[in-house]
């Protein structure tokens, strides 16, 4: 069990994948896997979407602002139509650096500043904080890891940043949390942190920020979801262990299943 700081993109090395079943399992991997072990085993690596790329850039600028140039480079070209622009882009990618436009950089910088300067988030950070803290441990002989975005140096919480297309209502955020498995993340991260540090943190804060202007924020506490999340991720770890040891990958719906006619359909 250990904590590590300043890993950057190295953190992502050695993840469990369909071709590396002995790697570290993480919350997002487990959440995908648990939906359909068979689907996960036969899936290809997920390609980064523009929304994901913006989210990563915002994370980088908000949490490790001094190091953003290690992972990103601003293009001097308006587009990648010219040969020179294409060469620069390919060369940059080959170095493991993500090319971004100046416009993307400025947008991400505004988003990062908005969320880190949020009046509701600031009180949690007054005692100082560490960012991007990687946590490693094992559960049931399975290697597990997670990276907490913000760990205040004292207090009872851990904080994670989330970019979102729009914040419409509390009910909408509840759906987002449950559909994206943020409650699994909350439970797993708190459990990892407490096991490694011996502390007893119990609050998990999500700092939501909209990805489009005027970049509204919402700081929400999802501690009430932790027990449900723990139930979910521990079951997923058990399922993972079973699937890997037996090399059987269950489908979402196994066997010859008889569907039941729902009550609402009979009424129609």
């Amino acid at each position, binding site marked *: *069990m250990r904590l590590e700081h300043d890993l950057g993109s190295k953190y992502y090395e050695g993840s469990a994948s369909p071709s590396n079943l002995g790697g570290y399992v993480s919350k997002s991997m487990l959440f995908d896997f648990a939906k359909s072990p068979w689907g996960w085993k036969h899936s290809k690596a997920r390609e980064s979407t523009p929304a994901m790329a913006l989210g990563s850039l915002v994370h980088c600028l908000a949490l490790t602002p001094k190091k953003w140039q290690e992972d990103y480079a601003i293009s001097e070209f308006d587009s990648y139509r010219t040969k020179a622009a294409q060469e620069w882009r390919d060369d940059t990618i080959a170095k493991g650096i993500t090319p971004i436009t100046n416009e993307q950089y400025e947008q991400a910088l505004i988003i990062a500043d908005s969320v880190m300067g949020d009046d509701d988030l600031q009180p949690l950070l007054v005692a100082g904080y560490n960012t991007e803290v990687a946590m490693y441990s094992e*559960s049931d002989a399975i290697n597990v890891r997670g990276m907490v975005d913000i760990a205040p140096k004292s207090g009872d919480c851990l904080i994670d940043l989330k970019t979102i297309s729009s914040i419409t209502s509390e*009910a909408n955020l509840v759906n987002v949390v449950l559909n994206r498995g943020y409650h699994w993340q909350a439970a797993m991260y708190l459990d990892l942190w*407490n096991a*490694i540090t011996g502390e007893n943190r119990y609050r998990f804060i999500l700092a939501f920020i909209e990805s489009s202007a005027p970049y509204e924020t919402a700081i929400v506490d999802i501690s009430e979801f932790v027990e449900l999340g*723990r139930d979910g991720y*521990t079951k997923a770890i058990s399922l993972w262990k079973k699937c890997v040891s037996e090399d059987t990958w269950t489908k979402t719906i196994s066997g010859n299943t008889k569907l039941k006619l729902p009550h609402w359909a009979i009424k129609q």
Partner: protein
Amino acid sequence: METETTKNEAIVAQEPQNYVMIKVQAETQAFELIQRQAMMLSKSTLVPKDFAGNVANCAIALNVAKRTRLDPLMVCQNLAIIHGRPSWSATALIGMINASGKFSPLRFVLDDDDNPTSCYAVARDRESGEELKGEKITLDMAKREGWSTKNGSKWLTMPGQMLRYRAASFWSRAYASDMSLGMYTQDEVRDFAEPPRNVTPKANPFIMPEPELEPEEPAQEPAKEPETIEAEIVPEKKVSSKKAGFALDEMIKELEKEVNP
């Protein structure tokens, strides 16, 4: 005379015992009867799914029917198990109040007939003539209490009806709680109650439970020599149960006679 007194005393002494036996017998008979009735009801194709094939639920429905003096089938039709709680339909509750004879028919006062935002129920006590006004229910209250923000909430699609139903159930709890037997209406249970969930917290899976340590053996004190008490040895005497006042055999025989005369 002396013999007569002793006889009477014996009768008086036996009376509580007889009473208990009779009560037990009557309760057993009543239980068997309700069980048979429940069995029959559970086999009916007219009862809703919560009661069909479920003798225990039917027995509860029969009990409720007895207490509320309603027809058992009506109870089955209007008592539903929501999130594990038996609850009335709001219409049945209003019907029970109106049919009770204790009050004038329940009336609903809305602030606006076309687009109501608040409602209270009112009825007159037939005996005293007093007007009994219920709690005012508002859409704002429904929102603040989280009734109208639940998925598929009828508060959004039929607010007028929900206001009336909720006003009726609040009224019944204030003035006629004996009729509802303290049960909520189905809409209320849906609005108030959370589905049951497991509240036993799971342990942090990353913390290995500490191995149970074997209890340390207490440091042994040097064995003390037992103190010697000199006592007179008294020969054991057999004590008869009768003499000791424990005429248990007789009591059992008496009871057997009572049960099987």
